[in-house]
């Protein structure tokens, strides 16, 4: 079995080479930021203070929590209606939401800027949240509809026989059963919102106190062009929350991106 053995070695080599390619920039960034191998956290502290990351992380958290909460609630409701109820216009509505998955932020960001400004919502956190809720709801409706369609019909029928209203059926029976699907949606929405840059750049254009973490990092970069350890520490701060959640919930990330993509 020499050919089998050669092939196995070849296969491992390929996988290891590309794993190193994927990891190297991330590890190198972390090593710069933490002054490895000595492990000196002072640059980290400097970046945190000079970059005002305490404030920016808090803003990012507020935006992410707000977007996730509202979008999840609305997506569960609309997905429930489109997945289990039969009413006039349901199909058209489904395609309308589906179209939202194909609208790039780059296409809407300029008109959004003028719309939000005319509503005095520019440089406000709600102004930054609402467009992201709209994007998340397009995905969430599509995602939750698929889940509600997969629920056995008998479960809903049984609830109705017991006299449960459609509202009670949703929250007492279907939502608890659908926790894994909902968690996947929450994780993806949270990641997209946390990482969003263009909308933050355009909508939070003058109020420094409202910058999100990615936006803060871009200005931090502008101020410290070539102070690489400091910049790498900033990058690490901004990326860390999502990466940490990913390490624990990687199945949800990958499964969500996969089935989300393949069902389209």
């Amino acid at each position: 079995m020499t050919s089998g053995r050669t092939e196995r070695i070849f296969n491992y080599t390929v996988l290891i080479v590309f794993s190193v390619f994927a990891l190297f920039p991330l590890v190198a960034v972390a090593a710069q930021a933490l002054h490895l191998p000595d492990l000196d956290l002072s640059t980290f502290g400097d970046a945190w203070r000079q970059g005002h990351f305490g404030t920016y992380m808090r803003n990012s958290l507020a935006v992410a929590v707000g977007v996730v909460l509202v979008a999840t609630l609305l997506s569960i409701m609309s997905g429930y209606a489109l997945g289990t109820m039969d009413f006039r216009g349901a199909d058209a509505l489904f395609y309308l939401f589906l179209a939202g998955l194909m609208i790039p932020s780059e296409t809407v960001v300029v008109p959004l800027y003028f719309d939000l400004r005319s509503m005095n919502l520019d440089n406000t956190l709600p102004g930054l949240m609402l467009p992201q809720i709209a994007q998340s709801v397009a995905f969430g409706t599509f995602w939750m509809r698929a889940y509600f369609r997969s629920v056995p019909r008998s479960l809903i029928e049984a609830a109705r026989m017991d006299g449960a209203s459609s509202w009670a059926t949703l929250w007492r029976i279907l939502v608890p059963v659908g926790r894994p699907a909902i968690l996947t949606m929450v994780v993806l929405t949270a990641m997209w919102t946390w990482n969003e840059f263009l909308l933050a750049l355009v909508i939070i254009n003058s109020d420094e106190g409202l910058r999100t973490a990615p936006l803060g990092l871009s200005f931090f970069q502008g101020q410290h062009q070539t102070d690489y350890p400091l910049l790498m520490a900033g990058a690490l701060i901004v990326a860390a929350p999502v990466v940490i959640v990913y390490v624990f919930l990687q199945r949800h990330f990958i499964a969500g991106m996969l089935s989300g993509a393949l069902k389209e």
Partner: protein
Amino acid sequence: MTRTRRGGPGEPRRIGWLYILPALVIYAAFLLWPLLHGAWISLFHWDGLGTGTWAGLANYRQAFTDPVLRGAFLHALVLVIFYAVLPCCIAFVLVAAMSRTKIRGLTFFRTVMFLPQVVAMVAVAVGWQWVYSENGPVNGFLRFLHGLGLPDWSRGWLGDFTFALPAVGLVGTWVEIGLAMVLFAAGVQKIPRELYEAARVDGAGPLREFFAVTLPALRRELSVAFTLTTIAALRNFDLIYLTTSGGPGDATKVPAYEVYNRTFNTGEVGLACAIGVMIAVLAFAVTVGVGRLVEGRS
């Protein structure tokens, strides 16, 4: 899509609209309306301050004739090679390596290679800017090679007229490999083992096995991966804005960057909106076109 009437007489009906209404209102106000509004603005010459003048399709014509903008779309095309073609090819090699023999630590490899997908693009950009910088690891390695007697290939990659675009593109390759790999790996698991056994009985080597069994079975996954990565290439803004700002000169200008640039730096809002609409149309065309081409579905 066929519509089946699944409900009994007591089925809730119009109440469905009530459940959808809140989602619909926000979706319509903050995504659909801006889309229409953007298309409307694209028909005007407008600096964003005063009143605009009717332009008809002049902004779209300009997008095709202005050399800088034509260049931007051309750069997007180059980026498609780096964002879509390269990652899909590499992912095929990876998946072949994962599927032909039993691999220990498959989950580990998958998790690691997917990681670039979840890191904020802003952090990716800042990190890679250092990787490419004057004294960064890439130049360090090339100077090491120079020390071994090779020519000195080190340079400021992101400031180089020839190499800035490929350098940015390679970051895209780095980001998108994981997505394509994960999609293909999921598809390979669904291929019946018997097909491989039959191919082996016929004496097929790894290469023939790949072209006869794996590739045809992965058409759907290939179509999805190619579509998603191509759209990512078209929409590339964060990376360009943070690493090169379109420079040096116009060497890395891309459509998404021009949407921002023309709105906030040169006051050509109508033109910016026209470019935005063109990005959406291209993304849609890619979705439909790749599906047809690769899967043969109508």
